[in-house]
């Protein structure tokens, strides 16, 4: 029933590491993962876990379409393209304007929680 607790040894190789011939012997799994990430996203900031992450945390929340902001931004931009909404990091209020295409789906109406309904045992 019980398991022996694994020794905490982050530099110990896992089976998967051994199979990856490109990695050097004894490299931390984390470093290998970091290398993978940097290979996919070369522009990823040098400063890990810095301001960008934190700003993202602080600004959680679904942004909605605001016609006032939208029209003002259009006027400012003139001929330029409006920045498109995306899973992305434009976080300063007023700079990132959702466009009509990005309108989120309507939330479903409030009903009683299913936990309060018939129980399943």
């Amino acid at each position, binding site marked *: *029933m*019980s*398991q022996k*607790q*694994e020794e*905490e040894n*982050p*530099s110990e190789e*896992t*089976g*998967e*590491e*051994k*199979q990856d011939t490109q990695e050097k012997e004894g490299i*931390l*799994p*984390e*470093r*290998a*993962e*970091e290398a*993978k*990430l*940097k290979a*996919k996203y070369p522009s*990823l900031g040098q400063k*890990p*876990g*810095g*301001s960008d*992450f*934190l*700003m993202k*945390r*602080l600004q*959680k*929340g*679904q*942004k*909605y*379409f*605001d016609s006032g*902001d939208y029209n003002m931004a259009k006027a400012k931009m003139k001929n330029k393209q409006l920045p498109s909404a995306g899973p992305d990091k434009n976080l300063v*209020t007023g700079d990132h304007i*959702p466009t009509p295409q990005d309108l989120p789906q309507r*939330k*479903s109406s*409030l*009903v*009683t*929680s*299913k*936990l*309060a*309904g018939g*129980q*399943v*045992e």
Partner: protein
Amino acid sequence: MLPGIGTLIQDMLWCFCQMKGTIEFGSTEADIISTVEFNHTGELLATGDKGGRVVIFQREQESKNQVHRRGEYNVYSTFQSHEPEFDYLKSLEIEEKINKIRWLPQQNAAYFLLSTNDKTVKLWKVSERDKRPEGYNLKDEEGRLRDPSTITTLRVPVLRPMDLMVEATPRRVFANAHTYHINSISVNSDYETYMSADDLRINLWNFEITNQSFNIVDIKPANMEELTEVITAAEFHPHHCNTFVYSSSKGTIRLCDMRTSALCDRHTKFFEEPEDPSNRSFFSEIISSISDVKFSHSGRYIMTRDYLTVKVWDLNMENRPIETYQVHDYLRSKLCSLYENDCIFDKFECVWNGSDSVIMTGSYNNFFRMFDRNTKRDVTLEASRENSKPRAILKPRKVCVGGKRRKDEISVDSLDFSKKILHTAWHPSENIIAVAATNNLYIFQDKVN
């Protein structure tokens, strides 16, 4: 019955007891459980969900007929605690998701709890009504006004028994005190005050006063470009009403004493484990971010949860934890994909059992882990519909890291990362646990021999 005394984790077998929630597909996002909490006696179990609703279960009295079947939890009350709101200035929606529920200790016949979403804390009163007045003079039994000319005699209304009705009413609404998103609330041991913490600030409230709060911690830098860490969780000491702790995204914990100054920006104690600089990677800070901090019942220890481990700290020793438990270290070689799918930011909670001898936390694939602090043994269990027969004993699960996979094991690549157990709760004095698996609530008990 005090758990932990004489019960080793190898001897303790957990059985399925109940599962709440629908098993059909297509349950909405609103049904996702976002918090689970037993009250101080364990008689009530509250859940909050993404749709802003609270459901409270009550343990039924044990019947003499079924000695081996301990009281089950049935729905006692349910109400809409928070509704979606809109911040017009920023065109941002304020989610109605219940981030935390905390019970107040019971002081009279009614039950009180605090529930909070990102911005507003509410105090709810849950009370029973089992009598109603009958025999009014001016209205009839349906409440319609009677024609005064038909009233010839005067009678005194009497209280008659009625079917039990449980009412939930919002008694206090504590609004507009947080610029950022509330991640924690904690009731003080003085039962007069409580705190609410957001990413950068912690406020102290008096239960009676809704339009003011004291700011006791403020880590917002003058220039937001200099922001390096945020507050991730906070809790009051269980006995000392002047002491509280808060954890950060950098893996540190600060203990503050409110007697030292009104604004507790300078900590009394600072808990941080030194890191070997050669181990540092892009992910180091992210996975060191503490997602939950909990005092032991004794008040002597704190437990913290970061992405891969649970740590126990002695309040008397700041330079390193006294115990570190690996929750799912095999994920270390998956950090790249976990970063891409945002799972690396999942916030797992952790809980103590009643005697502080066993700690529990969730993982992926609907697995949850328990660690016995005395024997150093641990076990991985699963909350799944397949194991949902009454009193079915939960079989320990094992994740295979590489090489040959044994028959009962599951490989790391087969883990379902959408099935995450972030919220669990342990009954204050018995071996009963509540595990939230997305939209289902599982209740497990130890096997009564």
